[in-house]
């Protein structure tokens, strides 16, 4: 028996003003393996994360769905949270009911709610199949290559070098300086560019 916890985020009014969250909760409670459905005004906030950690421990959850924003935004946040509760960080799925739902269907709340239910349901079914994943470790060569010796390449190379790492600066012309060196004075201070 899997023990899935689903956390429905309001994102203030970003989601909750369009999607009927209590209705989503009601539907999701009916799904197999779901032992907890909780709502939170801001899942990503510190108290929101504490609530998730507490709920995992209290309900002995072994996997989690966070229904909120895009994983590009907060996947790392929630992975860290469930790792704090002792779960493998990959035992989590996100349902994006903000960018993919409330924001784009702001004028159709009923349809948006139906879509949110589908999206969360999808995540619940998927999370039932996930397995722990483990990171690999690779060594790092402590040296950088900068391709292009204009003002950008020069600045990057100097900054890296100042931090103590060796840098190879490659320039196709016979001198560094690039476009910058061709310029006369540069705005807004009108100082010389070479």
């Amino acid at each position, binding site marked *: 028996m899997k023990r899935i916890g689903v956390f429905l985020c309001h994102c203030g009014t970003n989601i909750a003003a369009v999607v009927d969250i209590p209705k989503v909760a009601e539907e999701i409670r009916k799904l197999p393996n779901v032992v907890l459905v909780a709502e939170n005004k801001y899942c990503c906030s510190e108290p929101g994360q504490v609530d998730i950690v507490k709920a995992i421990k209290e309900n002995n959850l072994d996997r989690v769905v966070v229904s909120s924003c895009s994983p590009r935004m907060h996947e790392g946040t929630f992975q860290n949270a469930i790792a704090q509760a002792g779960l493998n960080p990959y035992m989590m799925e996100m349902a994006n009911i903000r960018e993919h739902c409330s924001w784009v269907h702001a004028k159709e709340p009923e349809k948006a709610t139906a879509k949110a239910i589908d999206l969360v349901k999808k995540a619940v079914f998927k999370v039932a199949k996930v397995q722990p994943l483990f990171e690999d470790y690779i060594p790092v060569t402590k040296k950088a290559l900068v*391709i292009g010796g204009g003002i950008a390449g020069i600045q990057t190379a100097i900054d890296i070098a100042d931090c103590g790492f060796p840098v190879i600066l490659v320039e196709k012309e016979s001198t560094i300086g690039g476009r910058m060196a061709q310029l006369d004075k540069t705005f807004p201070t009108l100082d010389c560019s070479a």
Partner: protein
Amino acid sequence: MVVAAQHPNITLLTYAEVEEVSGYIGNFEVKIKQKARYVDMKKCTGCGLCETKCPTKVASEYDLGLGKRPCIYKPFPQAVPNKPIIDAVNCKKLVEGKCGVCAKVCPTGAVNFEDKDEYITEKVGAIVMATGFDLFDYSKTYGEYGYGELPDVISGLHFERLANASGPTGGKIKRPSDHKIPETVVFIKCVGSRDDVKGKTYCSKACCMYTAKHAMQVLEKIPNSQAYVFYMDVRTPGKMYDEFYNRALNQGAQYLRGRVSKIFQQGDKLIVRGEDTIIGQQIEVAADMVVLATAMIPTHGSDKIAQVVGFSTDKDGWFTEAHPKLRPVETNTGGVYLSGSCQGPKDVPDTVAQASAAAIKVVALLSKDQMATNPRISVVDEAKCHGCLVCKGVCPYKAIDGKVVSERAHGHTIERTVASVNTGLCQGCGACTVACRSGALNLKGFTDEQILAEVDAACL
């Protein structure tokens, strides 16, 4: 420039190009071509005697053809390193076997006509792209500006060389055709920028400011001069930028809102015909010189270097950042970062800021002894893999290769090829999993079973 050359942690390889890149984040191997300079860098003192004696003079690329340079040359006086190279295409000694004056006059014997290209292999943990921009070639598309045939219609970069003290005119603004000092100068903005028909859709960002600067330079350097600026919009967001533009206005720059429809030569004047949309009338200016603020485009050849290093470019050829707001200096290829205008048009302050941002990302990576890789990558079920390697062809990150496995079948040991995923290179895009005909590839975290479960959820 000199700081970079003298920094103990920086190895400067000028007149060199990156030819090959293999490996992955933290573990790249790069092959760099050191092009033949024909001047021994160790012997040369940079005295410049050879440059004064070389009898062959050609148009200077650095001055955009506005001046001439010898065939053994430094592009400009403050060049770093301050040592010349020989232009192998035009040098009489290298082409015809005659001359050799530079070698004769060189007091240290640094000229070496036998010099060859050399290849250097280096191991690095991170790569920063800083390949910059070129200027849009208006001459092919903008017939109304004379198709590049009118000598006194120049680009903003030409103007920079004319205004620069180390440029072909010693900093005196003289028009190219007859070296007369132009009293009436017309500037045209957005040449190639914000023009989806003839040029590029984007705003090149720096032109409004440098045109204001150019107008001011004309008014300051040339007595009794007039500067007219034809514009579509004036875009000056930035600290002290709008104030700068207002300074140009206060100094007497005439801003005219409208496009120029035609430029033609009449006597020694260039007649600039355009529209002032604010007064709603056709206007004509008799100018001595016209300066076009041409669009920035990616450096010529940047698409090739993007392929060599292995990351993507956008529709205009600019290098694509991993996220426009949250990861502006990273690419989607781990360990490859973007600095300056190779990512999109930028002015100097933005370039410097982004260059430092790229540096800190590199430092964050290099500070680690080892790094964790994303576990959501492709995995091969070797039992199912036929070894067709279709996956290898579709992988944009060069992460898949064949490997030979031996196994027992029917009492014999047979060897066969299967796909193998490099865990450092794979970015988890999933392109291979859909290309695999035998279903041997799966993306961890997005396995077929997991995706089918989602389909079930949608159907049930």
